[in-house]
C-alpha cells in the first residue's frame, strides 16, 4: 500500500528507472557487438578468409535480435521527458532538446540506413561498401550514445546557459560548452567503453559455451581472441575514465561522491573504501551511529581521486548539509539552510518579476531580476523542505559503486588470463576457463547497470544539479495514471525480454552454421 500511495513524482521516477534499466540491457551489447563485428568483417575483407565472414554473420544475427528490442525500449525514454517531466521539458528544453534532435538527425538515421545495408546488402553492394556500412553502424550507434550522454552530462553539470525570467526557462548561450563539456566527454568515453566491455564479455562467454560443448572450436577461439582484446582495452580504459568521472563528481556533485563512499564526516587526506559494509542502524545523516559495520580503506586515495591532492579535504554528507568548510575556489561552503533561503529568495524574485512585468513596473522588474540572478545558483534548493531531501539513497549508491568497481577489477584480471591462455596455452582444453568465461557474463551486465544506478540515484534529488529537483520537474498527472503505464511497461518489457533471451539462446544453440550463413 505504501507503494501505491507514493507520489506521481516517485512513480514517474520509477517508470524512468524501469524503462532506462531495460533499455540499458540492450544498448551496450548493440554498441559492443557492432565494434566486434566490424573488426571481424575487416579481417574477412583483408584476408579473404571465409571463416571471418561466417563469424561476422553469426554475431550479426545476434546483433539484429538485440538491436530491435533496444529500439523498442528507447523510444519511450525520449518521449517520457515530455509525458512525465513536463516542467523539466519547458524549463531546460531550450538546451536539452538540441542534443536529442541532433541524435535523431545524425545518429539514428545513420544507424537505421546502414543497418539495412548490413543486413540485406551482402549480395547487393560491394564487399568494401558492406564493410563500410558495418563500421557506419558502429559509428552511428556511438554518435547516438555521444549526444544522449551530452544531454545527460548537462543535467549533472549545467553550463553554457542563462536563466531568462521573461520566458521562465534556461536558455542556451554556448552550444560548444554544452556539447564538449569535460563531464560530457568523460561520460561518453566511460559509457562507450562499458559498452565495449559488455560486448566483449558476451562474445567471450558464448564462445566459452561452444568450447564447453566441443562445438565450433575454431570459430569460438577466433571470437574469443577478438573479444578478449576488445575486453581488455575496454576495462583498462574504464578504469582510466572512471578516475576522470570520480574527479568530476568530486568537483561538481560532492554529495554524490559522499554517498558513493558512505562518507558522512569529511576529512583531509580521505581514504577510499576498498571493501565495506554500511551500518543499517544509521537512520539519519546526523545521528550518532557509525556509518560502517566494517571497512577496509586505501589511505588518502579518495582525496587524490577527487582533488588530485592526497591531503585535500573531502566533504562528507554532514559537511555538505552544514556548510562552513573551504571550497576548492577558496570560498566558504554554504549550509543547506542558507542555500534554501537563497533558493526561496530566487523563486520569490521570479514571482515578483512576473507580477511587476505584467503591471508594467519595469524598474521594479529590473530590481527583482537582479535579486534573482544573485541567487539563481541556489534556485532549486527553494523547492526542498528538509536536509534529508538533499541526500540521495546512500546504501544503494554506495553498494552499486563498490560492486561496479570490484567487477571492473575482476574483468581486467579475467581478460589478461584469457589472452595468456589464448596465446601461450591451449584454450580449447582449458575447460575451467570456459566455465569462468560463461559465468562472468552476468557480472558484466550487473556492472553496466550499476554504473547508471550510481550516476542517477547518486544525483538525487536533482534533475538539473542545484537548479531543478524532481519535485518541481514533473507533469501534472495523477499517480494512478503513472502506475498504470508503469505496470504496462513492466509487463511488456519483461515479456519482450524473455522472448529476446529465448530467441538468442535458440540462435546460439544453432551455432554459426556455415551453410545457412554463407549466402
Amino acid at each position, binding site marked *: 500500500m505504501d507503494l501505491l500511495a507514493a507520489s506521481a513524482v516517485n512513480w514517474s521516477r520509477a517508470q524512468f528507472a524501469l524503462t532506462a534499466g531495460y533499455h540499458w540491457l540492450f544498448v551496450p551489447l548493440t554498441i559492443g557487438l557492432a565494434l566486434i563485428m566490424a573488426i571481424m568483417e575487416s579481417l574477412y575483407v583483408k584476408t579473404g578468409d571465409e571463416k571471418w565472414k561466417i563469424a561476422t554473420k553469426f554475431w550479426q544475427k545476434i546483433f539484429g535480435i538485440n538491436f530491435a528490442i533496444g529500439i523498442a525500449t528507447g523510444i519511450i525514454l525520449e518521449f517520457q521527458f515530455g509525458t512525465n517531466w513536463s516542467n523539466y521539458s519547458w524549463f531546460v528544453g531550450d538546451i536539452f532538446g538540441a542534443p536529442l534532435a541532433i541524435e535523431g538527425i545524425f545518429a539514428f538515421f545513420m544507424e537505421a540506413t546502414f543497418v539495412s545495408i548490413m543486413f540485406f546488402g551482402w549480395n547487393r553492394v560491394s564487399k568494401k561498401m558492406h564493410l563500410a556500412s558495418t563500421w557506419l553502424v558502429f559509428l552511428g550507434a556511438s554518435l547516438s550514445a555521444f549526444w544522449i550522454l551530452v544531454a545527460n552530462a548537462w543535467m549533472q553539470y549545467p553550463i553554457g546557459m542563462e536563466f531568462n525570467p521573461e520566458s521562465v526557462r534556461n536558455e542556451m548561450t554556448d552550444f560548444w560548452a554544452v556539447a564538449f563539456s569535460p563531464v560530457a566527454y568523460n561520460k561518453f568515453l566511460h559509457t562507450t567503453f562499458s559498452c565495449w566491455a559488455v560486448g566483449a564479455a558476451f562474445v567471450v562467454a558464448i564462445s566459452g559455451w561452444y568450447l564447453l560443448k566441443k562445438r565450433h572450436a575454431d570459430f569460438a577461439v577466433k571470437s574469443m581472441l577478438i573479444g578478449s582484446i576488445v575486453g581488455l582495452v575496454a576495462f583498462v580504459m574504464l578504469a582510466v575514465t572512471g578516475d576522470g568521472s570520480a574527479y568530476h563528481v568530486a568537483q561538481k556533485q560532492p554529495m554524490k561522491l559522499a554517498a558513493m563512499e558512505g562518507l558522512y564526516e569529511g576529512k583531509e587526506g580521505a581514504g577510499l573504501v576498498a571493501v565495506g559494509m554500511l551500518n543499517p542502524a544509521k537512520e539519519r545523516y546526523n545521528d550518532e551511529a557509525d556509518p560502517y559495520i566494517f571497512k577496509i580503506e586505501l589511505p588518502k586515495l579518495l582525496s587524490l581521486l577527487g582533488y588530485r591532492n592526497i591531503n585535500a579535504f573531502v566533504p562528507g554528507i554532514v559537511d555538505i548539509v552544514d556548510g562552513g568548510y573551504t571550497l576548492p575556489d577558496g570560498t566558504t561552503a554554504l549550509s543547506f539552510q542558507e542555500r534554501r533561503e537563497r533558493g526561496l529568495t530566487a523563486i520569490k524574485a521570479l514571482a515578483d518579476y512576473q507580477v511587476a512585468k505584467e503591471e508594467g513596473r519595469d524598474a521594479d522588474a529590473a530590481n527583482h531580476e537582479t535579486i534573482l540572478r544573485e541567487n539563481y545558483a541556489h534556485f532549486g534548493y527553494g523547492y526542498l523542505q528538509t536536509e534529508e531531501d538533499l541526500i540521495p539513497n546512500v546504501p544503494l549508491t554506495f553498494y552499486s559503486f563498490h560492486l561496479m568497481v570490484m567487477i571492473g577489477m575482476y574483468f581486467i584480471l579475467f581478460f589478461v588470463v584469457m589472452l595468456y591462455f589464448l596465446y601461450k596455452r591451449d584454450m580449447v582444453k582449458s575447460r575451467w576457463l570456459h566455465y569462468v568465461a560463461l559465468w562472468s557474463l552476468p557480472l558484466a551486465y550487473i556492472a553496466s547497470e550499476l554504473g547508471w544506478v550510481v550516476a542517477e540515484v547518486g544525483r538525487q534529488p536533482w534533475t538539473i544539479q542545484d537548479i531543478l529537483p524532481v519535485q518541481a520537474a514533473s507533469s501534472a498527472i495523477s499517480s494512478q495514471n503513472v502506475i498504470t503505464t508503469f505496470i504496462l511497461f513492466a509487463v511488456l518489457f519483461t515479456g519482450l525480454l524473455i522472448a529476446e533471451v*529465448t*530467441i538468442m539462446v535458440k540462435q546460439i544453440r544453432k551455432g554459426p552454421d556455415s551453410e545457412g550463413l554463407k549466402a
Partner: protein
Amino acid sequence: MITYEFLQQYWWFIMSLLGGLLVFLLFVQGGQSMLHSLSRKEDEKRLLVNALGRKWEYTFTTLVTFGGAFFASFPLFYSTSFGGAYWAWMILLFCFVLQAVSYEFQSKPGNIFGVRTYRMFLFINGLLGTFLLGVMVASFFTGSEFTVGKGNIAGLGTAGPVISQWQNPLHGLELLGNLRNLTLGFAVFFLARTLASLFFVNRLSHEVLEKRSRKFVLFNGLPFVVLFLIFLIWTLLAEGYAVDPATNVVSLEKMKYLHNFVEMPLVMALFLLGVAAVLYGIIHTVFSGSFKKGIWFSGAGTIVTVTMLLLVAGYNNTAFYPSSFDLQSSLTLQNSSSSEFTLSAMAVVSLFVPVVAAYIFYAWRALERRKLSLEDLNSDGHTY
C-alpha cells in the same frame, strides 16, 4: 537578415516537413494493417512482411526525430502536449514499441508468443499508429483543453508548480470524442493503406499480390478521399484560432484556415498540387494495369499536402496548438519556441539534412535496384 521571427517560421516549416515525411512513411503501418486481408497464403504474408520490414526503421526514426526536433524547437509544445495528452501519446508510443520487435522476432524460433501474435502487434501498430497520429494532428485545428501559466513554477496562482496543466481528466482520450478529429484519424489510416498498396504495386515481383494491391488502392483510396475532403471542408469553414500580431491576444476567427490559404497563395497552390499528385497516383494506378510509379506521385503529394496543411495551422498569425479551454493559453510560434540562439544553432544543424537524405537515397537505391521476390528472401541473408 535572419531574425528571431524568421527562425521561428523556419523551424515551423522544418517541423511541418518532418510531419509530411512521417505521414508518407506511415505506409509501413498501412501495410501492416492489411497483412491478413491482402495475402491469402503464408509465403505471400512473408513477402509483404519482408517488403515492409526493410523500411520500418525509416518511419520509426522519423518519428523519433520528429519528437526530438519538436523538443528542440518548440519545447512548450513538448511539455504541454506530451505531459497533458498523456494517454493519447502513451498508447501511440506503446504500439510503436510493439512494432519495433515484431519484424525481427516473428519468424525466429523461441519467440514465445508465436508468429500470429507478432503479426497482431503489427496490425495494432498499423491501426492505432496511423489513426492516433491523425487525431493528434487534427487537434492542431480543433484545439485541446489545457492551460499554460509560466508563473506557476514561481508559486504564482493556485495550480501548483507545473506550468502546463491539462484540464480534462481523460488526458488526451477526450480527443476521440471530437468527430472532426476522428475524421482525420480515419483519413490518415486509409491514406496509409492506400500508400502501402501503391508501394506493394511498385516493389513486389509477385503477380497475384500486385493485382490485389491495385484493387486495394481503390478500396482504401476512396474512403481516404471522402474522409479527407470532409475534414478539409469542415476545417476551412470552421472557426480557427487567430493571433493578433500586435497584442498576441488569441481569438476565434470564422473561416480562419480558409483565410490562411487565401492570404498565402503559394501555400494554397502547393497544397492543391500535392492533392492533385496524390489523386493522380491513385487514379492512374487503378485505371492502368501496368502503371507502377503511383507511390512516387502519391508519396510526394502526401509530403507536400501535409506540409502545407501544417503551415496553415501555424503561419499567418495562427495558434498552432490551440487551447479550447483557455484561448490565451494557446501555443503560438512566438510563445512556445526555443530561444533565438538555440533556433540558430539548430538551423545550422538542419543544413546537414541534405547529406543525411543523400545517404538514405543511396541506401534505398542500393537495396532496391531490383524488385523483391520470394527468391530474394532466401538469398539476402536476413529475413523476417
